[in-house]
């Protein structure tokens, strides 16, 4: 699984370009491989994982974005298998937050 952390929004699909990126922002992209897509149960798990961090977390699917702590908003992203998501976190544990969510979202088997 490729976990990409970077600060250039131009190469992060779905991330809004912003010329003044805070140094505390971390971003990563991930392709969803689970054959069922991001349905309610894994969306709930993502929101639980996100609540474990102090950073604010946004998950983007193209132009749509969701608060990573909100299972409802994550479901509204309609994440089908093969979708590339951008995970963006801002805060003192942003890097760990992005790594954790990217790892979970990219797993083929969402046991939770």
């Amino acid at each position: 699984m490729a976990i990409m952390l970077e600060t250039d929004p131009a190469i992060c699909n779905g991330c809004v370009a912003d010329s003044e990126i805070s140094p505390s922002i971390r971003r990563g992209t991930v392709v969803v491989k689970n054959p069922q897509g991001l349905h309610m149960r894994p969306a709930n798990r993502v929101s639980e994982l996100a609540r474990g961090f102090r950073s604010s977390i946004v998950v983007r699917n193209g132009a749509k974005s969701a608060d990573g702590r909100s299972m409802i908003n994550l479901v509204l992203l309609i994440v089908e298998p093969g979708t590339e998501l951008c995970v963006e976190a801002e805060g003192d544990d942003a890097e760990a937050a992005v790594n954790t969510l990217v790892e979970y979202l990219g797993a083929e088997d969402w046991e939770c």
Partner: protein
Amino acid sequence: MRMSSFIVRDAIVPRLRETSKESVLRELVASLVTAGQIREEEIAEIVSGVMRREALGSTGIGRHIAIPHSKHVGVNQLIGTLGISPIGIPFESIDGEPVHVLVLLISPPNKPGEHLRALECVVRPMKDDKFVDQLRSAKTGDELWALIDGGE
């Protein structure tokens, strides 16, 4: 896409009678039998599938709403029904509140995109408290149908 794209109009239950999670799910599944969408002998298997899914984590999403669901080989396309419980059903929801608005979804296996779009279609209007209140206040299936057919 609206909820009316997959909710079976004749299966809508404006006043659910049952009071427990499993019995109300059976009542909703039975409404799909009455509406001619599934066979009576499939009720037990579908209810069992929905309850297995609930055991993995409640589909009570808070604010008195639940979206119980399951896959079933007996349906060729995603179907659903809507039921309103006047008294509220204990559902182990994320906010601990009883559930008054239930949307049951039955989808065919191997059509995850259809299921995801239907979920979005249910969740989106439910973010509006006024819409949820209107559903809870509706007295008839026709009123409920008008609400889910007339939204965004």
